């Protein structure tokens, strides 16, 4: 038996009050795999992603990250989270810190790296996302696309074993989406394990190893991008893709 899958989810359920958002999900992501999760808003995609590092507390079921049970009540959740990079729709850069300090602070506080090393790693990762020159800027001085790339650098600086992306381009102006997707494409090319909640069908088709379509709290179908995106089995998937690709026709 090889090492445990980066992500394994068993019978995951999540309710907000009386509303059941996840209705028993079984799901796995293999090492080096890029999985895109698509589906209509409210289908539970983001909640599923946020259950992986327990930003949402699952109601039932179990989640494993590289063999460690995240849903175990006694787990050191901070220790698990530092192995998982997460990128948010709203970037969530720390507004009171410079770009460089945004990328350095968790290295110092969590990994215990000294100031010089944290700075060196931060600069290297900022260069990786094409922002090596903007270390002294504050987040407000950057465009949305630049902010999101800093957020990716911030996650990468922790040397994560896998990356979670929660609609990383949904708050960006259309002309800025390409830069962020470019960084993610490179990352996928380097073999990073990635779980990406997205509406970017082009990105999913080109970069994903597997696409999962979620609807109403379940994974309705999943498979190779060309299968799910070109010849979906379910009518719900067909309707969703048709609306996404040609909103005017509906």
């Amino acid at each position, binding site marked *: 038996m090889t090492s445990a899958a980066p992500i394994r989810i068993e019978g995951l359920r999540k309710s907000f009050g009386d509303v059941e958002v996840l209705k028993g999900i079984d799901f796995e992501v293999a090492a080096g795999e890029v999985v895109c999760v698509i589906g209509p808003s409210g289908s539970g995609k983001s909640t599923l992603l946020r259950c992986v590092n327990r930003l949402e507390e699952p109601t039932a079921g179990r989640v494993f990250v590289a063999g460690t049970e995240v849903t175990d009540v006694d787990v050191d959740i901070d220790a698990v989270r*530092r192995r998982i990079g997460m990128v*948010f729709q709203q970037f*969530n850069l720390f507004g009171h810190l410079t770009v460089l300090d945004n990328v350095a602070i968790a290295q110092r506080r969590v990994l215990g790296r000294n100031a010089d090393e944290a700075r060196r790693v931060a600069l290297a990762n900022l260069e990786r996302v094409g922002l090596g020159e903007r270390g002294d800027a504050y987040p407000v001085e950057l465009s949305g696309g630049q902010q999101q790339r800093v957020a990716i650098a911030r996650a990468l600086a922790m040397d994560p074993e896998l990356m979670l992306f929660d609609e990383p381009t949904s708050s960006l102006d259309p002309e800025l989406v390409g830069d962020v997707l470019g960084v993610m494409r490179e990352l996928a090319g380097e073999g990073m394990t990635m779980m990406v909640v997205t509406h970017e069908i082009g990105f999913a088709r080109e970069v994903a190893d597997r696409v999962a379509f979620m609807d109403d709290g379940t994974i309705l179908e999943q498979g190779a991008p060309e299968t799910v995106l070109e010849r979906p089995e379910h009518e719900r998937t067909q309707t969703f893709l048709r609306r996404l690709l040609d909103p005017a026709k509906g």
Partner: protein
Amino acid sequence: MSPRRRAQIARGAQYGVLILAVVVLAAVADWNRISDAFFDTKVAGKLFPDLITVALKNTVLYTLCAFAFGLVFGLLLALMRLSPVVVYRALATAYVEFFRGVPALLVLIAFGYGIPIALNTEVPGGVLGTITVALGLVAAAYMAETMRAGIQAVPKGQTEAARSLGMSQSWAMISIIIPQAFRIILPPLTNELILLTKDSSLVYLLGLTPGDRELAKFGRDALNDYVSMTPILVVGLSYLIITVPLGILVRRLESRQARARG
């Protein structure tokens, strides 16, 4: 008549009344007597240097000590009010309601006279210790509410980003949330500092040695000594020297924040 013309006439009438009032007051007033009572430069000169080296110094000292005490204790209360632990929340709420609801004067009397009688011991640090604790406890109640609001105003995504990087709840609070909360609440905290500057005058209740006197008590003693209103005017101006710049600072901070929000 156009609305604009009507507004002009109304404005002109208002200015006219104001000018008339000033002219009448100036004509009626006995200027010699007023200048003797309020602007006696000889009396004003005798107030120095103690006005600065004792009175102003003590006002600033009492205010800053009480403010620092209130800031630290208020932050603790704010965190208690946000705690998931019901007992902490209840204690902090009760504290805030109590100390916001009773006069600062009463709290100062309790610490200056009540506790020495009841416990047969004085608050350590003498006058400075007593005023610091008494006014600090009251200020903490107000500042706790301000800080709680400030912490809650920091977007939830900031905590999520910090926690997802593996930071503990405490580290996220200390290095990410609280620094941003303080930027938000700097204007209301500066207002609190202005209020405390004036409240520090309550210290007169404690029975002060000459060296313990702050501006208000110093001015009142000088009023008795020289039988002149001039010390009160000088002392009032001294307060303004502290509070007006703070007020300007608040407005600057507020307009800077308005710009940052865009």
